[in-house]
């Protein structure tokens, strides 16, 4: 059994192509079922995020399976294969395992170390598990990928630093204000980035939110969303001293907070530090505010600088992550090859039993004056005969399973006795063990 991966990502395709190939999570059932209905494909999982679309599948025929899935992608999205093919990559066996481990560990992400990808793979896998299009191998494979990703997260510092502007703002605020759990955020204006940053601050425990906007209704709406308090724009300076964190992104053409305002606010709060983030262009907050004692002003450029530095750090950590993945691939590959043993034994047994029954029936039905207990005796005789014959090869195969020659034996047996793929019920049996 082989694992194959076919897909495209931000590295091989533009967003226009990725959009056309993406699968909608609401309509994922049909493509999943179509996928495993293909002759060459046994199990299948479809991963679809805004940065990548990938299909993980198991097949007996690597080349055929890959070609078939490429065709499947083209047909499903009604894109000519010639157009799609240059963007597609495919991996099989060990390379496929490495690829998926790297993707889950966020080493292949646009921003290395970003945490969303693991959740997205888990969701996508959830659909496949729900519609039972993933089986024993892909189940085990993806769970292994999840645990590898977790190991990478805990053993390297790949995700320890902020690489988004909003998150960098939170990290920076912690360096000034320490614990954010009793701090209040003031939101001035309603830029998207500002809202995002506010959400990050609330997630980090910030207690109170004040929102102000030239349009009071907008402030009220946003305040409601954050369970905060709306402040009329004309009065916000009177409330400034209550804020520990001020996020500003108005469209105002001029400065709206000057050093004098901040000095007053700081005095009213007995020099407790204030943290300002100015996201607006042109700027909302006078640069001189940074000169006020106990006031710390940062602009988007400062935040970008932090993000850049952290990204460089992440790339260093990624090397350590690759080492972890190398170790884990070896382990998983060993399990994958040993997996062939049990189904092969079962198939071999079934094959023998099939022949035995057929011959037994032929003999009995042609035997006119068959003694009453003869059928039972013949049954026992042929069973004993079959079991004795099978004993040696079964033992040899099981022992090989612990060694390393499994593929050789399995292939030989399959060819010599024309064995079919593993029977259906056996998969569930194995699943319970796993």
């Amino acid at each position, binding site marked *: 059994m082989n694992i194959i991966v076919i897909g495209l990502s931000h590295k091989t395709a533009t967003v226009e192509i990725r959009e056309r190939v993406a699968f909608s999570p609401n309509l994922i059932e049909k493509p999943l079922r179509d996928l495993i209905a293909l002759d060459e494909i046994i199990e299948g999982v479809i991963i679809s995020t805004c940065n990548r679309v990938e299909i993980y599948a198991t097949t007996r025929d690597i080349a055929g399976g890959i070609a078939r899935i490429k065709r499947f992608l083209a047909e499903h999205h009604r894109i000519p294969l010639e157009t799609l093919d240059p963007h597609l990559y495919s991996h099989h066996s060990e390379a496929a395992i490495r690829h998926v481990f790297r993707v889950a560990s966020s080493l292949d992400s646009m921003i290395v170390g970003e945490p969303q990808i693991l959740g997205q793979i888990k969701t996508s896998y959830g659909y496949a598990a729900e519609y039972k299009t993933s089986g024993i191998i892909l189940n085990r494979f993806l769970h292994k990928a999840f645990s590898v990703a977790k190991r990478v997260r805990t053993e390297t510092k790949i995700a320890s630093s902020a690489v988004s502007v909003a998150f960098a703002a939170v990290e920076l605020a912690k360096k*000034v*204000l320490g614990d954010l759990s009793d701090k209040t955020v003031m939101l001035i204006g309603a830029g998207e980035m500002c809202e995002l940053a506010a959400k990050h601050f609330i997630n980090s425990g910030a207690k109170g939110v004040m929102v102000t906007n030239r349009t009071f209704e907008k402030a009220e709406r946003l305040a409601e969303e954050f369970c905060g308090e709306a402040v009329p724009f004309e009065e916000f300076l009177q409330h400034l001293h209550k804020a520990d964190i001020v996020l500003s992104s108005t469209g105002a053409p001029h400065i709206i907070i000057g050093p004098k305002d901040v000095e007053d606010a700081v005095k009213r709060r007995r*020099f407790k530090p204030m943290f300002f983030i100015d996201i607006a262009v042109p700027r909302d907050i006078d640069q001189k505010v940074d000169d006020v004692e106990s006031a710390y002003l940062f602009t988007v450029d400062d935040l970008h600088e932090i993000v850049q530095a952290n990204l460089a750090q992440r790339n260093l950590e990624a090397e350590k992550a690759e080492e972890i993945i190398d170790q884990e691939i070896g382990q998983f590959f060993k399990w994958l090859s040993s997996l062939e043993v049990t189904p092969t034994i079962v198939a071999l047994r079934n094959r023998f039993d099939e022949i035995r029954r057929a011959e037994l029936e032929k003999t009995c039905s042609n035997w006119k004056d068959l003694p009453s207990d003869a059928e039972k005796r013949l049954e026992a005789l042929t069973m004993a005969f079959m079991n004795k014959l099978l004993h040696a090869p079964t033992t040899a195969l099981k022992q090989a399973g612990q060694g390393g020659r499994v593929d050789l034996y399995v292939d030989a047996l399959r060819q010599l006795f024309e064995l079919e793929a593993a029977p259906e019920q056996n998969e569930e049996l194995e699943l319970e063990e796993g």
Partner: protein
Amino acid sequence: MTHLFFSLTLGFYVCATAAYFACLFRTSAGLTQWASRLLATGCVAHILSTVHLASKAKHLPLTNMQESLSFFSLMIIVAFLIFERRYKVTTLGSFVTPVALMMLIGSSALHMELRQLPPILQSNWFWFHALLAFVSYAAFTIAFGVAVIYLIQRHFLKAKHFGVLFQRLPPLDTLDEISYRCLAVGFPLLTIAIISGAIWSEKAVGSYWVWDPKQTWSLITWLIYAALLHGRLTIGWRGKRAALLSIVGFTVLLITFFGMKHSITW
């Protein structure tokens, strides 16, 4: 025995100081743990050495510069270990352990024979005074370390310089809180130490206040820390000004400790 424990202490402090320095530039849970373990082990050896010396001399080892330096150093380490547990401020160690280490090296360089305790020191007021003074000194040493870090970290924030050191140093708020705790513990202790010192002086020489340099400088130290605490409690002094004043206070404290001799003792 005292000597053995003392050498062990010195060895452990040297290793711990090196480890704390490394902690400034590397994030590693293992390293942090080792630094703390080395220091704690050194601290145990230090306590044993001090106890052994005290039992040999039959009094607290606070009677000369050699003993005092060692005791000062011990109090600093104990205070730091407490704050490290409470606030997880490893990097404070990089600033405080060198101070303690220097004092211990200074102590080891001095060789003073055990001598007969001068009658003037045979007063419970003296021991009470000296012990409290050293605990308050240790608190102010921590406050000094915190103030230095505060100024460095503040500089990084204002200059928008976000390097490795910036990442490793604790948040301003934490530093501010530790600084306040130190002041809140150190100042009352220093006050009681000065009062008990005056009482001892009365018993020894018949006058509460003799205006010898030691007493005068102690008073200056007290006034600086009084101003700092007062500013903090009334108008919320913190940040740069408080940090600078804390550093000035510590400098005066060192002058008092090293430079000024009691006219009445030696």
